[in-house]
């Protein structure tokens, strides 16, 4: 039986893994598998795919640990491997995403093209909190994956713009722009949902 490494700091575990220590790999796996599963699930929207993504991602960690230069945190590197594996999985499925343009705000000569309703007013009574989380999750699931992943990394996993940029291999301004578009689209989708729900009841 190998040594229990679960109490060691991450940097030490990475060092031991570089030396080929399996117990260190196991400790890193245990530390990250929950987060990585959520991330994979948020991108693929499918348990079986998420499971395969985790297999691929952790195997890549084992194989490529020598090329991990330590400039970014291990977690960021692992997120990056996971996002790439998850997006690759989706690519095999072909395009089936909803276009977001129709949910973005429209302007005419720089001004809102139509009056924007405050649909949050009374929304608390209309959709209960638990139901609301479900609605938001389902709505996020209809966003294109590259938008979904930014929302999950920033707003759920709590990464900074800089960390998200590292994970996605892009710049901070690009992350901000994508986050903004994702929120704009989601806002538009929720507006439609709440408005329709209100007229139904």
């Amino acid at each position: 039986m190998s040594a229990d490494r679960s109490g060691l700091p991450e940097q030490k575990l990475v060092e031991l893994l570089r030396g080929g220590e399996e117990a260190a790999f196991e400790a890193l796996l245990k530390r990250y598998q929950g987060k990585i599963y959520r991330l994979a699930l948020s991108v693929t929207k499918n348990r079986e795919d998420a499971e395969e993504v985790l297999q691929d991602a952790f195997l890549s960690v084992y194989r490529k640990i020598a090329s991990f230069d330590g400039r970014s945190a291990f977690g960021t590197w692992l997120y990056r491997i996971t996002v790439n594996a998850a997006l690759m999985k989706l690519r095999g499925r072909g395009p089936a995403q909803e276009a977001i343009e129709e949910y973005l705000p429209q302007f005419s000569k720089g001004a809102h093209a139509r009056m924007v309703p405050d649909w949050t007013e009374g929304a608390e009574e209309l959709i209960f909190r638990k139901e609301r989380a479900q609605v938001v999750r389902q709505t996020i699931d209809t966003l294109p994956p590259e938008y979904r992943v930014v929302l999950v990394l920033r707003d759920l996993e709590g990464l900074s713009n800089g960390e998200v940029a590292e994970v996605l291999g892009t710049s901070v301004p690009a992350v901000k722009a994508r986050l903004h578009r994702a929120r704009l689209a989601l806002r538009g989708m929720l507006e439609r949902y709440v408005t329709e729900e209100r007229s139904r009841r």
Partner: protein
Amino acid sequence: MLTCQEVVNLLVEYLDGTLDVQTARELERHLEGCVACHNFIKTYRATAAWVKEISYEEIPDEFKVRLAGFLKAKIRQEKAGDTWLR
């Protein structure tokens, strides 16, 4: 004076608190006189807050076991030099 479109484009930075003071003040001045933007920012803010309430299922225990087993087997294979099995 900022236009509605400019206000909307500045929202990420405004809500992150990274907008420079001067521009933030202009944005707030615009909000005071524009109901559409006032409602827009309120609903945009709610959207961002609601995202934080969602959750994804926990990793199933049986999958943890399968994953550990899969990785162990792969590593053993690779250590044995059976790389052609990949």
